[in-house]
Every structure is written in C-alpha cells, then in structure tokens.
C-alpha cells in the first residue's frame, strides 16, 4: 500500500497533473467525456449480454451480434481508459485509498477476466452454438457475470464522486468570460500546432 501511495504522489506531481489542477475546465470536461464513453461501453456490452442470455436477437447468429457491435465497445473503452487515467492522475493519492474506486477497478478486472475466459474457451467452439438457443451454460454464465460486473463498474464509478472530493484547490476565477476563454483555448492550440 505504501508503494501505491508513493506512486500516486509521484503521479500527482507530474506536468499533466499540475496543468489539470491549474485549469478550471479540464477536469469537468474530461469527466463528462469519460461518462459518455463508459455509458457507451455499458450499453453496447448489454446488447451482447442479452443475446448470450437468450433474451433478445435470438433469431440472429451470435457471431453477427458480437461482430457488428464489439468494435464500437473497444473504441468507447479506449476513450474511457484515456479519460479515466487523466482523471486519476491529479487526484491519485485520494483515489488509491477510496473504497468505491477499489471496487470499480476490481469489477473492471473481473469483467476483463470474464471476457478473456469467454473468448479463449466458449467462443472458440462458437460454430457449435452460433444459432442455437439457449446458448451453452458457460456462455450464459459469462453473459450474466458481464451484466453484473459492468453494472457494478457504473454504480461504483458514480459513488466515487460522492466519497472522494478534490485533493487540491480549484482556481477561483469563476466568473470568466466563456467565449473569450474558448477563443484563448483555440489560440493556444493554433500556436502549439505551429
């Protein structure tokens, strides 16, 4: 645990962390994008889980349902990971001791393991059950576990916001000019590109 806290404190002193702590808008905007991405991951996985549980899309082969939606899940997951890391860094020491955060990460790891086990065992024999209803027990269990674990990720993620708080003081120039700040931001991006 000491190592984890030490690592978290090092992360918190990094350049990107200092930039985010000094910005009024960075954290809220990144957090909102994170929510958009996590909701998309949850919803697209739900479609696959419901097919595994035999509740919907039963007239369609599983590989078709799985194949056409999963790349959207991965794109949203990539966005969720990048924004999640950005949210973690400036508050790292608070996150590592937060129970809801620990539970969210545990649920995420379990969801990943569940998916890996499904892909490397049950999915290998998909030709045998692609159009079959009900799907094999192992696939139904994978679907139910996935539904449970991703719901847990979402709920724990929401609870973090009620238990953590900021580990630094947010700048106080609250009544800034919105339009001017957007133009300044665009100007900075333009200069960076040059």
């Amino acid at each position: 645990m000491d190592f984890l806290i030490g690592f978290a404190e090092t992360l918190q002193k990094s350049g990107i962390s200092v930039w985010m702590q000094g910005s009024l808008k960075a954290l809220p905007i990144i957090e909102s994008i994170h929510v958009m991405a996590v909701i998309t991951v949850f919803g697209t996985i739900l479609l696959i889980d419901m097919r595994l549980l035999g509740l919907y899309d039963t007239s369609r082969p599983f590989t078709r349902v799985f194949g056409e939606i999963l790349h959207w899940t991965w794109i949203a997951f990539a966005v969720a990971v990048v924004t999640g890391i950005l949210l973690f860094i400036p508050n790292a020491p608070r996150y590592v001791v937060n129970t809801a955060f620990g539970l969210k990460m545990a649920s995420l790891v379990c969801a990943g393991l569940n998916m890996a086990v499904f892909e490397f065992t049950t999915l290998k024999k998909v030709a045998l059950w692609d159009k079959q209803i009900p799907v094999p027990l192992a696939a139904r269990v994978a679907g139910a576990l996935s539904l449970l674990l991703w719901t847990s990720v979402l709920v724990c993620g929401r609870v973090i916001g009620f238990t953590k708080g900021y580990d630094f003081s947010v700048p106080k120039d609250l009544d800034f000019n919105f339009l001017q700040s957007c133009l300044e931001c665009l100007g900075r991006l333009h200069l960076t590109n040059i």
Partner: protein
Amino acid sequence: MFEFAQWLELTQISVTIKSVKWIVPAVQSVHIITIGIVFVSLLSIAMRVLGWTRMDQAFSVVMARFTPWVRNGLVVLALTGGTLVVGEPIRELMSLSFWLKMSLIAVGATSAWLFSRSLRPLVRTGREPQFSPAMKTAAMATVLLWLAIIFLGRAIAYDVEVWGGLSFSPRA
C-alpha cells in the same frame, strides 16, 4: 427561478431526499444505467438507418426491438431525473447545463416522434424504407445530440467551472 428552487428545497420531500444519504447516489446510478440503455437503443436504430448494422433484419423488426426500450427508458429517466431535481433543486434548476440538456431532450424527443410517425405508413404496408442522405444525416445528428445530452448531464455538477459568467448558479 431561484425563488422557486429555494421554495422547493425547503419542501418535506426535498428534505427527505437530501437527508437519506443513499437516495441521490442510488437514483443517479439508475439514471445513468437507463441512459446507457436508451442511448444504445437509439444508436442501434441510427446505425440501421445508416446501413452499418442489422442489415439482415427488416427495419420494422429493428424498430419493434428498440422502440419500447427507448419509450420506457425515457419514462424512467423522467422519474429519476425529477427525483434529482426535487432533491437538489438549486444545483439543477440554476445550472445552464441543465437547461441546455432539457432543450436538447425536447429536440431529440420531438424529432424521434416525427421520425417514427413518418415511417408508420411504410411499416403498415410492409415495405422496406429507403433512407435518403438527409435521413442518414439526421440519424448521425441524433447520436451526436444524445452524446451532448450525456455530456451536459455530467457537466451540471460543474456549471460555473464549465460556463463561467454564463452560469446561473449562485456564487459562494
């Protein structure tokens, strides 16, 4: 509006929602899960309009599969959202993000209703609809609109930080 929010905050129901610690996190969790369901249902319909997915299914089948989820999901969202407004009226009603979100929901719900109404004759005759480029653009716009609704929903908590002087929130 501020006076109304202040009055609402002092009502018994608002006091109860605030005083029971688990109500707001639990209702917010249900709200977020339901948004996931509604968003992916609309995304599935939009992707079928765009011809990206479910081309092996008739459009009427796709509509019948997802429309009840959107309709019932919107009812759950209204109920949980309403509970959150009553529980934290000043935070919600004095937020620019909240009102932008409500406006986009009104636009989204009206366009979804018009869309399904325009397809009713085709569904009745059993003909497969051909979607014009304008319809496909509208489908993409709907997905972006709902992403914006999700974004604004989270941004309610940070109204002054995001909007600065444009925010209606009372300053400390």
